[in-house]
């Protein structure tokens, strides 16, 4: 039961990864790609780590820390990248 749940989490995470990383190859703007990357890197990775957590419950503190730092860092990074790249565009005109 737990194994099925864990596999499900990891598969969802991998689907998120592929779906969110694929637009990187396109020609959209940086911000549009940032949206899909936040799906892939934050939510997808969190789903994968949840899957790992269900598989090895006795190491929960470390994986919980991984979850928290994933959420915080990736979100803040999204904000910083958005801020830095748009100020440049705003400078152009």
């Amino acid at each position, binding site marked *: 039961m737990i194994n099925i749940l864990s596999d499900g989490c990891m598969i969802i995470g991998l689907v998120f990864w592929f779906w969110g990383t694929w637009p990187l190859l396109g020609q959209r703007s940086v*911000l549009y790609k940032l949206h*899909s990357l*936040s*799906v892939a890197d934050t939510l997808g990775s969190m789903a994968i780590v949840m899957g790992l957590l269900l598989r090895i419950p006795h190491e929960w503190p470390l994986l919980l820390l991984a979850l928290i730092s994933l959420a915080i860092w990736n979100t803040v990074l999204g904000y910083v990248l958005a801020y830095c790249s*748009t100020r440049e565009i705003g400078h152009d005109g």
Partner: protein
Amino acid sequence: MAGYLNLLLRLTIWFLLTADLSWDNLLLGVTIAVLLPRGATNPGTLKDWLYTLGEVVAAIPQAYKEAFEIMIYPHHHEAITLERAKPRRTPSLLFLDIFLITFTPKTIVQHYCEQGWYEVHRIQRRPTP
């Protein structure tokens, strides 16, 4: 009150990192948490903090819901909107607000003006009227 929250956050990280609840480790963790320098914070009210932290917990399923929405229905249109920040926010609460908006995949804060506005970049299914 936010000072206690600050200590609590440090202790949580310490125990998650060490995964050891013995008395020695507890003493060490408390010492480090107290000794680490902290900036002069202007503490907000406890109610604001609890409310915002509750919003953070609620944001996680919301983010997954939005992710599935984006995946099922393609959102091809981009727009920039201005959103009003709540009045009288301390910097750490502002950080949590920006975190909340950016965490959900449809919206990203790209700039915060000093007058209390966020520039929010969002993707939509149809162009803005």
